[in-house]
């Protein structure tokens, strides 16, 4: 039973995959994207204690050097997250797959599946596998939302119980990727190929920011890497919005609708058939 640090669980979520799903967000990410929309999920809390004093309801306290959170008292004002200098939150809880599944279960039969997101959920592969086994027994489909930096081919048992992966392809050029995320993208490309060939690629996602993200190169790259498979896999073009962003791009504007439509048209011309803008 390997637990995962859980940021939050959304009982009903429309944005994370097909149909109605329970979404589980883990805490902690191995990238530092300049456009992260959930920056408070990036880092695991270091127990520095700065937020404890900023909590107006007294929901946060120290115990044995650890910052703990009393959920009942919290009024979700957001002050703790706002004041955390490390892009973290004092509220995540270590939970086992069984504990998380107990929360998921409450939403059956209103959901058709679960989506685990983050942070980066593949940092907790054993937890994912255990959770998915439980969910599959309840006939729920199990999706992973990932930045693609974990070598998924190393976890065949997890992939067996995983219905599909929604993969971020953040940039194709290595330098661009590095500048945007602080990480390397070789593994993302490997996963792209691996997932497409094992029919586990549920969706590909590109956050579009002119100048920062080489969208056209990404599209070309995907096509060269997975060939004809690209036709039938969903491609989601996400219009960058700076709402909630704390990183370098927090003051960057959204691309225009025309830009997004233009990209969509190019993708369709290249043979992608299921292209959505959000």
């Amino acid at each position, binding site marked *: 039973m390997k637990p995962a640090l859980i940021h939050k669980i959304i*009982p*009903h*979520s429309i*944005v994370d995959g*097909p149909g*109605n799903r329970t979404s589980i967000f883990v805490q902690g990410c191995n990238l530092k994207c300049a456009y992260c929309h959930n920056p408070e999920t990036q880092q695991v809390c270091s127990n520095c204690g700065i937020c404890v004093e900023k909590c107006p309801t007294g929901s946060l306290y120290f115990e044995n050097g650890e910052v703990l959170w009393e959920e009942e008292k919290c009024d979700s004002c957001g002050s703790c997250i706002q004041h955390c200098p490390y892009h973290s939150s004092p509220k995540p809880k270590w939970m086992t797959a069984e504990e998380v599944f107990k929360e998921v279960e409450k939403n059956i*039969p209103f959901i058709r599946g679960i989506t685990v997101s983050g942070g980066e959920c593949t940092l907790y592969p054993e937890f994912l596998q255990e959770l998915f086994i439980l969910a599959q027994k309840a006939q729920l489909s199990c999706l992973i939302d990932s930045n693609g930096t974990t070598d998924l081919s190393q976890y065949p048992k997890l992939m067996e119980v995983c219905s599909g992966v929604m993969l971020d392809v953040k940039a194709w050029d290595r330098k661009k990727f590095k500048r945007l995320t602080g990480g390397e993208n070789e593994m993302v490309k490997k996963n792209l190929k691996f997932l497409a060939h094992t029919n586990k690629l549920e969706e590909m996602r590109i956050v579009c920011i002119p100048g920062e993200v080489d969208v056209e190169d990404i599209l070309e790259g995907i096509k060269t890497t997975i060939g004809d498979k690209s036709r039938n896999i969903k491609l989601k073009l996400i219009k960058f919005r700076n709402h909630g962003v704390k990183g370098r791009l927090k003051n960057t504007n959204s691309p225009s609708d025309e830009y997004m439509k233009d990209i969509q048209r190019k993708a369709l011309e290249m043979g992608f058939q299921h292209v959505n803008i*959000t």
Partner: protein
Amino acid sequence: MTDVLDLIKSRKLAYEQKVLSLAHAAENSVDVLHIPEKTKYYFEKNAIDHLFEGNAPYRPRYILPDYDKFIENGSEFLQLDPPKDLDELLNSLMILYRHVPSITSFPVYLGNLDKMIEPFIAEYSDDEVRKKLKLFLNYLDRTITDSFCHANLGPEYTRAGRLILEVEKEVQNAIPNLTLKYNPDITPDEMGELALNTSLFCANPAICNHKLNKDTYCCDYGIASCYNILPLGGGAYTLSRIVLPKAAKLAKNIDDFFHTILPDCLQSMGDYMNERVSFLVEESGFFESSFLVKEGLIDKDKFVGMFGIVGLADCTNILLEGTGKRYGHDADADDLADKIMHTISDFVTSFPAKYSPIAEDHFMLHAQVGMDYDKDVTAGVRIPVGDEPENISDHLRHSARFHELIPTGCSDIFSMETTARNNPAAMLDIVKGAFSLGVKYISFYEENSDLVRITGYLVKKSEMEKYRNDQVVLQNTTQLGAPNYDSNKLDQRKVRGV
């Protein structure tokens, strides 16, 4: 007769609204029903409520004509041949609707519209049908000036059904209410999703659990007025209601409620309803003179008496005052509510009702939705607005439990975040789950929608605003809706994200 003069001089009522109100005043000038003192006492305390149906019933409250029969035979009385094409069909229906009485004097049921229209549209393009439907629907909206009016769709997919939904989204009318009869085994997901998505643009249609409702009677059913499940080719004679929180307030304690007040109220209301039904059937002459009866569009043997309950939540909370336990949040509270429901249901399913063979000579329970004059009375068995459980799963499980004993209409309403428009499949998942657990009827609207569902009927926020500013408004349900919206704080209805 100052009331009458007030009506005549009113600056807020449109002409037609005045005429109807004056007819009501005339009816109330006679006294033909025998009402015992005890019943009068409970009426005075509003523990039971006759909903101002009038002192001398001369037409059934709700009528659901067999429109298929009309389409097949035409009408001798109305001098109409069976329609041969779409124009004739829509025109004939417009004429017939005008002659279907009800408690509001407007038709409360317009038929299974998609199925009625489907055989007539084969030779027309989508655009041609849309144009005709738009005229037809706007005619209905502007002449049936009362939202307690319903048209049904489904459960099968039809081209006509799809086109009606498309037009509905465009015209944004409050009338008629639309309901899709939905059965996941029959209704394609595509149709379910289109219906749900449409409801996030115009609060229509609502979704009825066809599987659970279809065997309510030995004949087919229709959804009429707000969301009343009634026999097709018949309807409801009358609807009275027991106002549970008012009854609870008369009780000294829980024991007194169960042993004296509740049984007294139930008995008084049962007797009163029989009194109404008897007058209507035996003395009013309705069933002897109406062409609807003569031409076989309705049949006396297909009418029921609707035994309404309202405010189960508030009643439970009153009985548990001081314990801190609340309906919809504590198992003990819900168990007590369940006991109240079973007590009522046991009474209703054994009390002999007059002239009700279709209901095996009983009245039938109905979750009444509240009146404009109600304060602190929550619709039917719903959880009070503003006190809804955090997770919609808990809410729907609760609904499923309390819908069970109510056969003639029981519903829930959810206000949704705008983003729900992006994922109709997610909405359908919720509906499927809810229906599989026993929820009988559900409806949605989008949080910023001008059209909002008050208790079962639709009203436009913009029209309510006019009414509040003392302007004459077209639809008389706006006059019911505005105070209801305000006093029940419906703007605080919990908004659900999916």
